[in-house]
């Protein structure tokens, strides 16, 4: 991880990303560069277009304009599953787990593209199938260990508390073996104690799995606590970038969150 010694290529390069929904401009000319190993935050008031940016990076929405490059390959126009296989894993703002299934199965599903056996192997239920299946189960259990979910392994996921469900989502996204992990409000609905745990976990997975993380978050203590760089959006545009300290003192950011001074409010 000595990036400084050599020339560093960006992991993710987003250039001129623009999205119109009919006449509504959700995101306008969004640029962002993320290097390997970084932990970057994307913040902004509700409706600023943060999730739209995520959905364009992951291919759920097709950008109206602009490019998204991962390791130099343009991903615009790829199907979401191809983008995931290329190395971008994500979680969702409103949790999207496979509700009827167990926690373990939720995580194992994400290993599908790297399962290493085909339909015929599974129909014959041969040695290759059982060996790979053991490997997948082991890896999934490792991830559950990391996210402290081991004891919920066989629970049906919809019966889990909210905070645990968020962690299952992170474990599932990591099972896609991504280089870049996109977390959409991972701390939403968590209590302060859970948030501290979560922050530790995010740090831990970044360091131990050599991940790069981009996260959207509303809770300032999370963003300010763990992100190294922050980008702030409002009304689909970037209004500020910088370190947490710089952002905290930025007049535009304060305005975006709290309104344009007392005179305008009255």
């Amino acid at each position, binding site marked *: 991880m000595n990036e400084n010694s050599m020339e560093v290529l960006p992991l993710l390069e987003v250039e001129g990303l623009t999205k119109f929904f009919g006449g509504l401009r959700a995101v306008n000319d969004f640029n962002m560069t993320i290097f390997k190993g970084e932990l970057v935050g994307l913040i902004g008031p509700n409706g600023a277009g943060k999730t739209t940016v995520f959905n364009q990076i*992951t291919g*759920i929405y097709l950008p109206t304009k602009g490019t998204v490059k991962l390791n130099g390959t343009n991903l615009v*126009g790829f*199907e*979401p*599953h191809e983008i*995931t*296989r290329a190395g971008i*894993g*994500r979680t*969702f703002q409103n949790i*999207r*787990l*496979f*509700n*009827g*299934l167990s926690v*373990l*199965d939720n995580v*194992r*599903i*994400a*290993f*599908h*593209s790297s*399962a290493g*056996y085909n*339909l015929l*192997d*599974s*129909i*014959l*239920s041969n040695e290759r*199938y059982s060996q*790979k*299946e053991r490997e*997948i*189960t082991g890896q999934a*259990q490792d991830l559950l*260990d*990391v*996210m*402290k979910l*081991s*004891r919920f*392994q*066989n629970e049906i996921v919809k019966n889990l508390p909210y905070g645990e469900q968020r962690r299952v989502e992170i474990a*599932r*996204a990591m*099972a*896609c073996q991504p280089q870049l992990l996109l977390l959409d409000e991972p701390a939403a609905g968590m209590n302060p104690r859970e948030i*501290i*745990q979560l922050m*530790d*976990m995010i740090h*831990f997975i970044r360091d131990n799995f050599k991940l790069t993380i981009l996260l959207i978050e509303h809770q300032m203590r999370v963003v300010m606590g763990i992100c190294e760089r922050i980008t702030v959006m409002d009304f689909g545009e970037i209004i500020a970038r910088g370190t947490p300290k710089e952002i905290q003192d930025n007049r535009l950011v304060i305005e975006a969150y709290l309104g344009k001074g007392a005179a305008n409010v009255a």
Partner: protein
Amino acid sequence: MELKSILFSLVKIIAVIAYLYGLLWVLGVKVPVIKVGSRKLNISLLLNAVGAVVAFYVIQLALTDFNGFKLLNSFDSGLLYQACSMTMVALGLNLIYGFNGQFSLGQWGFYGIGAYAAADVTFRWMNGDSRGLTVLGIGVILGGLTILLIRKFLSNLRRMPVLSSFTLYLIGAVIAGVAAVFAGKFLAPFIDPYLGNSLEPGVLNQSFPMSIVFFFAVVFGGIFAAEVSFLFGLPVLSLGSDYFGIATLGFSIVIYTLMVNSDTILPFPEMKGGRGMIGIPKLTTWPWAFFFMLTVIIIMRNIIRSSTGRSIISVREDEIAARSMGIDVAETKLMSFVVGSLFAGLGGGVYAHYIGFLSPNAFDFLVGFNPLIIIVFGGLGSMTGTITAAFGWIFFLEGMLREILGKISPEAPSWRYVLYPLTLLLLMLVRPQGLLGNIEWGFLKAKITPLRNNETKEGVKTA
């Protein structure tokens, strides 16, 4: 008198369900690996195979005539074969609708395709015409290879519009079909002399070669249904779930219409259109019915338990999330649709050779709701539920009700179509998740991965 026959029918239904429980249990028996010296012996699989054979012989003995005493008469054995074929169709539909979440009304159409295709093969063979087998066999093999080849070729091209790739597949399939027809014509003079005709059966028309032909007829019929479902599903599965349901309903109607006019707009005079195809050799016996049903159950169970099965279920649970987890949703849908239709086609072949007479009315789309009712009744996403509901449904509706109502008056059996919807209604009110919910028996039970015992190693230290 009435009471006795009611009781007897009830006992039969319970016995059938108990039998299914036993079958599934014996297939799932697991014993610890035994160590003999340095070698490890895993005898579980052997036990399961022996169990299956025992289960097979239990019914086989019940069907055998011991000096005029038969535990199961021909009426019951008919129910048994119907139940086996219904199990296959319903399992296929459960894969498509219950596990993959694609509401399909086309299952009955694929069942009909399998039935007519297989029946045509054996019918022609029996009457001294080998082209049924050769054309269908070469056709499905060539067609399958063409599809695989085009698929391989297309996987290198990115994002081909679905209609363009569909056109390619269609052209490939048509070429394969035409080639098969010519190959059949070419081969006919070499095979036909050994077939003789229905009055003087030739060497290849005896009972043993005939059962081999029957096997291939059913298998090819199933594959043919699967290939048709591939061509049909490719463009249609990209529609949303409800639209897909309507499109598949249209498909069943198309198939029904083709069956009614099979002797006029299709070149199959032996199918006799709306009058119905008669004289299909009754080749379905318990060994074959059991074999095909068990194969379908095992294949489906192994698919569901694999990574592919999990991806199929994930599409049902949340399509967008599945996509974002690297699952090719379109391919998963297509795969389960094709496999489900394959099962339907196999079921059709077994049915046709039990009943010996195919009428298009049996493949009307209204009748096509039967497998749907069965899977909802048994529980969507439960294989055990489907199997027991298929057997229970046939034995209750076609067995018990028909027998009992038939004793009241000749017209009374029609009342069963009043009684069983009411039963269904009642069940939906009492148990909306279906008879068995998601309970699975024996060998179909999902493997529960034991917890690891390492609380201390868990994760990071909390602050």
